[in-house]
């Protein structure tokens, strides 16, 4: 909570990462840091919802398949509570059908793991400029 406020002070846009995979939670913040963003990580959708970073988050990098609430379910949840954060989905599964579905629901991008740093940067930038 304190961290969130701190980051806001330095005016770096907050990007939140929700993924149950530890490698992603460890590696992405450093890369996002290199891009000049503040980053927070959460291991589940429930943890993210319970935090008070929701309103500060400018872009949400969201895993699709997770134990408990899935990524698309979180997307719906946010929509229903009218907190429409731009979402970049990431997924390790190769099911092509899922991409048009989440885009249809308003996601900015859906990246298949592993993705390149530039693809991620493009996606986050689109998200930040979407409003």
């Amino acid at each position: 909570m304190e961290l969130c406020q701190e980051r806001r002070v330095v005016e770096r846009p907050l990007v939140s990462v929700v993924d149950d995979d530890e490698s992603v939670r460890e590696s992405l913040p450093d890369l996002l840091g290199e891009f000049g963003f503040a980053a927070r990580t959460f291991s589940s959708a429930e943890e993210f919802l319970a935090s008070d970073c929701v309103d500060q988050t400018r872009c949400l990098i969201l895993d699709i398949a997770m134990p408990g609430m899935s990524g698309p379910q979180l997307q719906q949840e946010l929509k229903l509570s009218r907190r429409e954060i731009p979402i970049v989905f990431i997924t390790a599964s190769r099911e092509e059908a899922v991409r048009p579905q989440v885009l249809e629901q308003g996601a900015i991008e859906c990246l298949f793991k592993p993705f390149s740093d530039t693809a991620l940067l493009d996606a986050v930038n689109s998200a930040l400029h979407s409003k």
Partner: protein
Amino acid sequence: MEVQSELASGEVRHLQRCINDLISLLGLPAIWRDGDPPQLLHSLLDALIRLLHLDLVSVSLTDEVDEAPVEIVRFAEQRTPMPSAHEICEALSECSKSDSRRWPPLLRNLMGEGDVSFVPLPLGLQGELGVIVAAARRTDFPRQTEALLLSVAANQASIALQGARLLSHQKRVASQLDQRVVQQTAELATANEELKLELAERRLLEEKLGQEEGELKRSEARKAAIVDSALDCILTIDHEGCITEFNPAAEHTFGYRRDEVLGMPLANVIIPLSLREKHREGFAHYLATEEARVLGKRIETTAVRADGSEFPVELAISRIKLEGPPAFTGYLRDITERKRAEQELRRSEAFLAEAQHLSRIGSFSWRVATDEIICSEQLYRIFQIDRDAQMTFELIGSRIHPEDLSKFQEHLERSRRDRSDVELEFRLQMPDGAIKYVHVAAHFRRDHGRLEYIGAVQDVTERRAFEEALSKARSELSQVARVTSLGVLTASIAHEVNQPLSGIVTNASTCLRMLGADPPNVDGARETARRTIRDGNRASEVISRLRSLYGKKDPTIESVDLNEAALEVLALSLSELQRNRIIVLQELADGLPRVAGDRVQLQQVVLNLLRNASDAMSTIDDRSRDLLIRTEPDRDDRVRLSVTDVGIGFEPQAVDKLFGAFYTTKTEGMGIGLSVSRSIIERHHGRLWATPNKGPGVTFSFSIPCRPQGLTSDDTPATHTPSVSDAA
């Protein structure tokens, strides 16, 4: 360009589906091993309607001797009211000869208006077994691939039906044969008793008659009593051929009273018209020359009753040794019954020979004391030994396969010693080198103090070939299942591998950026490089787990820690289970004895049980999706593994079908997993079963022995126990 590649990938998908369907259809015969035609047809129709999206498929079999005709119909959707399968088959058989637009009203009611395309598929070369009719409302039905699949299915069914009919025919003949042997044994025993009785009677009679001749005058009364009470007809005639005596048995047999015939010429009374002249000539010839053709012999001839009916008789005539002109006594017996029995016996022997020929079963008896062997004709044929040859063990030995000769002799000596029932199987080698498999069953018995074996030898060469083909098909099926579950796993594996790969790419990118910064962030770069290596190792672990699960081909027995094996499978499936929101609970027993088995095959079974449990809970939302995997020592030196879910469970009446291949409650997948799992466990001499829980859901368990017992091989070796055990 894109359109083209989409078309191509659509084509590939279509072909892939067609190949999958083809594999499913080709796998069917292995499931039909119990050979019950209705059951195999049910599974075929189910598979067809699902694979080809048919609206209607039916089968009708032409009836066999004592089987009711089989008619089965499947609709894609449930119809009400549902006419009987017979009515539908009847209607289909009519319309298949005419225009499909002139749809019989019965079918129009069921299928609705509009065109329906259908394909009749004859079963057997000329459709002699029956016909399958597949129908769909789609206008493009049947496409080329569908027509191919249908004809493959019809061929598979024809082969299986013929096999099933042959098998049931063999069983029927074998049981008839058994009955026949029992009946004949009984008949022979009865005949034997009768003969002994007759002999004793005759001896008594002759004894008494002999005495009487010496004491004629004193024993007139006694003689009369004997003659009167004799069972045979006794007639006496004088030298002119006139009747002087006619006992009560004769009165009864011929239908004359004694006083009617006394003094009448014998020829006119009991000899049929056609034989009278011959009789007179013979009688005159004897009187003139004393040369007799019939005296003192037992002859069979024909006699006539008072009512004119003729019947076969056995006759013995002797001359009465008295002074004066010759006189004769005739002992005469009605042998109608015996003749009929003889004919009956001849006919039943012919039946037996035919049955033995058809069922390739020969029978034999072996007197232990004398080594006298009597064989049926079919047995000579099986051994390819000349019918006239005297059967000896030496001769039989010359036909036995050299590798099986010592086994045969061992059994022979044991039978001689133990005098217990025998059952064994061995190979024969014919003079032309051909190999035959025979099955021998013999029963020991005492026949009036003589020890003998009575038994049957069946040529099971064809059955053997069938079993071998079956076993091969089965192993192919389990390979198909392995590939299928591999396909399903691929998605989950890609997921597992992509996770660390993603970490690697992100870390490496970050590392480059940190080193490229001014000033370079070396500490940060070092940390990201370290994480890159760790993620690389993670990916490699996933691959090596995968290799250990699918890399090996041949089943091998090794000592397996079931806990360890189960944990490996859990590690591979964990992400898939988590995605399905399954909560995995483990109760793995400490110090669990190791089991003997094929690690990979056992892991496939565990994987299958986990996936089933997960699928069964996919629609459960009112309780947590708990999956319990448990290991524990079982009685009789076994180890048990069970997987409990809280899913939708199954209907109690479905338990029997549960393990049949292609039985599935899921909308996707072939449902092949449980039947293959069961056959894997049975090959480990174990047992796989399912029990409904007290609460919701089901528990699947298997139990296998700890001590090595050898895998039941897929190749059937030449032992005397058939290796294809029928799964109950």
